[in-house]
């Protein structure tokens, strides 16, 4: 077990929120076809409110802090916020489309000791990337920014969201990342829009195309091991929990709402009304999320994939129950191994349904 994994497990066991994802804005200068956000500003946290939240998070033991959005650089105070976070000695990661990063910004990011900058790149073909972001020349600007950041010696990761419009481009993006000397990560998850509109789910790549992704050793490591049939679950597996959401990780929206994860729209409190640590420690919703063990899952506890499935409790919650199956993960488990899931078998399906109705994140109403 690596030291990092060991520390993560320790935080999990102690219930310390070691990692937080903070969206500082939902505003954006791109209009990506798959984006689930409402880009209007409905009352973002002020600079002072964010600094106060950072003080509280440092006190609570948060170490890994991800700033994301929206596009973080649309906030004029973003560098002030990052500087404040770094003075509090957070390990800072920034997620951005990078189109506003030039040499000066890259230099400042390096000076501030930011750990990683993750940048969305959808294709190695400019016309495909720009068609997804709907911002002309965004590919050119993003790639230029990656070069500026790399020249500063910063660690950069290209995040490649996979969808129908770019499904054949992931190898090209991977090659581009190698040429630029940066890391590469791929995500095939498309989530519904904040207003509940599920039309974007039609952009998800068909499950039938997943085996091609799963057979790429550069993405999955040991392909034979990755695609091996599931092993029968042990007692320990059944006593286990889904993921770090609500255990050692949480998400805070630009309006101060706290959720177990960015992909788990269960409201647990708002930092404009309560202290962060009070929400973390005492929210009934957080406690409920923490209580769920594999053996409690309504369908998945009897599934042969239970010990190896990437079941996301947030996506399951969006399907109707945080203890239920997450169809997107059923799909991945099935196409990874060829073994049907319990969720498929109970519905008499020979292959998973690729889209299911989901609910999505909504701001909590905050009284003035």
């Amino acid at each position, binding site marked *: 077990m690596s030291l990092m994994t060991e520390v993560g497990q*320790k935080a999990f066991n102690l219930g310390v929120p070691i990692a937080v994802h903070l969206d500082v804005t939902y505003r954006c200068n791109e209009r990506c076809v798959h984006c689930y956000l409402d880009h209007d500003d409905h009352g973002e946290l002020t600079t002072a409110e964010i600094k106060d939240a950072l003080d509280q998070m440092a006190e609570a*033991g948060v*170490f890994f802090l991800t700033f994301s959005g929206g596009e973080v650089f649309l906030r004029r105070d973003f560098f002030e916020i990052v500087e404040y976070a*770094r003075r509090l*000695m957070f390990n800072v990661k920034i997620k951005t489309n990078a189109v506003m990063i030039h040499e000066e910004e890259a230099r400042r990011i390096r000076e501030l000791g930011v750990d990683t900058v993750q940048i969305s790149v959808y294709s190695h073909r400019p016309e495909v990337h720009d068609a997804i972001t709907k911002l002309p020349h965004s590919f050119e600007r993003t790639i230029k920014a990656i070069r500026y950041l790399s020249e500063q*010696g910063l*660690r950069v990761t290209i995040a490649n969201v996979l969808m129908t419009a770019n499904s054949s481009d992931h190898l090209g993006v991977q090659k581009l990342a190698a040429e630029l000397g940066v890391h590469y990560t791929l995500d095939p998850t498309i989530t519904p829009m904040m207003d509940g509109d599920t039309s974007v789910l039609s952009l998800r790549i068909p499950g039938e195309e997943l085996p091609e992704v799963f057979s790429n050793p550069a993405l999955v490591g040991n392909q034979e091991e990755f695609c091996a049939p599931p092993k029968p679950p042990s007692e320990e597996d059944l006593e286990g929990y889904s993921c770090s959401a609500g255990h050692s990780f949480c998400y805070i929206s630009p309006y101060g709402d706290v959720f177990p994860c960015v992909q788990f729209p269960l409201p647990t409190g708002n930092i404009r009304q309560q202290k962060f640590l009070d929400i973390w420690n005492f929210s009934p919703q957080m406690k409920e999320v923490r209580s769920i063990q594999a053996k409690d899952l309504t369908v998945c506890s009897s599934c042969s994939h239970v010990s190896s499935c990437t079941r996301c409790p947030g996506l399951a919650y969006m399907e109707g129950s945080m203890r239920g199956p997450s169809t997107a993960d059923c799909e991945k488990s099935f196409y990874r191994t060829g073994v049907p899931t319990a969720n498929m078998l109970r519905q008499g399906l020979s292959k998973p349904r690729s889209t299911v109705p989901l609910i999505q994140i909504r701001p909590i109403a905050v009284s003035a």
Partner: protein
Amino acid sequence: MPEHCIYIARSSAIAARALAGEMMVMNSADSTFFTLNEVATAIFQAADGHTPLREIVRDHVCEQFQVDPEQAQADAEQFVAELSSHGILLVSNQPLAAETP
């Protein structure tokens, strides 16, 4: 370098947080990750750039952990040298200005 004039300060490139009495430290420049035990954490937290290492060891290690001063000093110097080699601590024989991002 004579022992009495070693000054240590935390680098501005690092991230750090205490977890159950132990300090997690990460250097963003090369992603090296450490956890420090309680004694090392006490030295790390006292590394303000202007308190000599010998005083830090006397006030924050010997008093709190009841250890032999000479042994503690030797262990502290070894620890400081290791963290310095990873860019986590800055070491000088002159007082150092505290680094801020």
